[in-house]
């Protein structure tokens, strides 16, 4: 059983605070992604867990034992780096065996373990090669084998696939997940790629400016963003500045009700996913009217940019069956939206029964 917890971890470089008091608990066998834009402190957090950076304050515990004072070579963590960090002067076999030798395993044990690790990553015949003879994807697999062969308690991955091409990235992602389940190891994966995080993680920690904005299951991160940053960073979102006046949202000339108990007066932001905008019969009361500016065909659906009078350009996803062209006038209504106020739990609103326009009616 290996769990990891960070207590009030802080990292400061000179005057710059890279990580603000961060708390995190990772369960045994869990696959946790730390997701955020570059410079958000996610790599620094990971490097503190690995021991490459010393926290300015706070405590790191593995299985409830503090490891904050241990140098990286004494920590039960293993890291896969962004760049391919195989030692170029050693063959693949030696790369994997290096750590085992340092730990004093017998030659027979080393041989067995290296072979096992190579098989695990699907490259059993690669022991005699030099890293320069491997492709990027193969190098990263060997790096993974090198990390796993020591049976660390925590596996750390720092954007390991970001140097690979898109197709390979997806394949290795699936493979990593399979291996992680197979050896049942606790893993922390840092990435700026939301698709990667959403498809890999048991839980995602979205980081911004040195803070965790939201720690949640992937579906909740997408469906119920808890901060404006998460709402904007994950997926595509229409963010509309609006004003709340008591129990009503005022946006341009439109007025929308707010569920009771959420009365407030001041500026708010309305967040609407493109798939949550539906076409309604034109002329209906609450409909947002706009003109189609651009239609982008994305295979099984269309992304439509609609210029409105008060809300700028709205991104709308429509099924292919709906026939829209540039310069068509559309009436839209949100079926679901979230209201964000400063430092308050966002309010999720389901518009419930918005009358849908039949497809024929459009034509």
């Amino acid at each position, binding site marked *: 059983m290996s769990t990891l917890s960070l207590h009030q971890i802080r990292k400061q470089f000179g005057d710059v605070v890279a990580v603000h008091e961060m708390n995190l608990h990772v369960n045994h066998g869990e696959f946790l992604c730390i997701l955020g834009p570059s410079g958000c402190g996610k790599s620094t957090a990971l490097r503190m867990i*690995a*021991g*490459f950076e010393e926290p300015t304050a706070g405590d790191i515990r593995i299985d409830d034992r503090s490891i904050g004072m241990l*140098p*990286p*070579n*004494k920590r039960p*963590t*293993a*890291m896969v*780096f*962004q*760049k391919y*960090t195989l*030692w*170029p*002067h050693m063959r693949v076999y030696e790369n994997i065996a*290096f*750590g085992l030798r*340092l*730990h004093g395993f017998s030659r027979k044990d080393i041989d067995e373990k290296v072979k096992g690790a190579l098989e695990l990553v699907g490259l059993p015949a690669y022991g005699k090669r030099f890293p320069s003879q491997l492709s990027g994807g193969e190098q990263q697999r060997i*790096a993974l084998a*090198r*990390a796993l062969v*020591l049976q660390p308690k925590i596996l750390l991955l720092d954007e390991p696939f970001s140097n690979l091409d898109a197709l390979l990235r997806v394949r290795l992602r699936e493979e990593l997940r399979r291996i992680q389940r197979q050896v049942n190891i606790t893993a922390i994966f840092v990435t700026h790629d939301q698709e990667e995080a959403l498809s890999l993680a048991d839980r995602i920690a979205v980081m911004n400016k040195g803070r965790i904005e939201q720690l949640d299951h992937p579906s909740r991160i997408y469906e119920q963003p808890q901060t404006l940053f998460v709402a904007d960073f994950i997926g595509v979102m229409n963010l509309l500045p609006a004003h709340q006046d008591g129990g009503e949202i005022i946006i341009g000339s439109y007025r929308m009700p707010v569920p009771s108990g959420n009365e407030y007066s001041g500026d708010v932001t309305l967040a609407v996913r493109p798939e949550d905008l539906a076409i309604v019969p034109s002329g209906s009361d609450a409909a947002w009217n706009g003109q189609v500016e651009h239609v982008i065909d994305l295979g099984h659906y269309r992304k439509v940019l609609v210029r409105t009078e008060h809300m700028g350009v709205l991104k709308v996803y429509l099924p292919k069956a709906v026939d829209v062209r540039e310069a068509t006038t559309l009436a839209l209504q949100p079926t679901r939206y979230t209201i964000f106020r400063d430092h308050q739990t966002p309010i999720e609103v389901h518009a419930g029964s918005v009358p849908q326009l039949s497809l024929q009616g459009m034509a």
Partner: protein
Amino acid sequence: MTTVTITSIPFIRFFRREGIGILWLIGLIFGIVLPILTVLLWAFAIKWRYPSVLPTEWGLDFWMETLSRADIRRALPNSIALSVLVTVLSAVICLPASFAFARLQFRGKQGLLLSFLFTNAFPRFGLYIAIAVIFFRFKLVGTFAGVVVIQLLNTLLLMIWIPTAAFQGVDRALEEAGLDVGASPLQVFIQITLPMVFPALFAALLLTFVNTFYETYGALLIGAPNVLTIPVIMFPLINNQPIPQFGAILSLVLFAPSVVLLLFANRLLRGGYLTAGFGV
């Protein structure tokens, strides 16, 4: 009907494409290779009468005679001992420094590193005269130690510059990966960092050895006439000797370590070691 155009003749086509290159090749063979070849031929000639293109009589007779001369028997061990000692000392003095320049952070680092480049701005010969004036006072002129010091100066730049670039070139992540699998910092240095910079260090040591083995000015000004090296005793042999073979044979002796260097020429070139330390 097929017409044979002039460009379809392979040789003509080749020449049109490579003409300039062939001209360069011929020019450089004349200008560079043939003079070197002359030395080689003279070293194995007993007689070479004008206007014969090749020696009129071949033989190794002069090798025995040259290598048994008293001055050469004294100078050769001197030259070798000097080169070995200078290479070792240069490494001891410069390698820790180049590691510091590459890896440690300290105030004034850039300036200090640049000061090595600035030594290029002094004409060597004039500089050795200025140093000789100081050495006179310390009674270092005409001593082995004096020659060692002057040769060290000569190779300092090389021994700082190449290793510094090499240490800078080692990706930090590769070392972190070593720490990560449980190696101590010392183990990382010995088993990961050093093997990776080894080619550069080897190049620096080799270049230092060879440069010291050849070096003429410093040895002449500081060492002569007490401490003689092969290049220094060659002056009279080239200038006043009616027998050209002495100079030719000693040239080849002097050239011998360069052959090793030539074997690595391609790697030296690709590593940028041949122009290291000139601020290019």
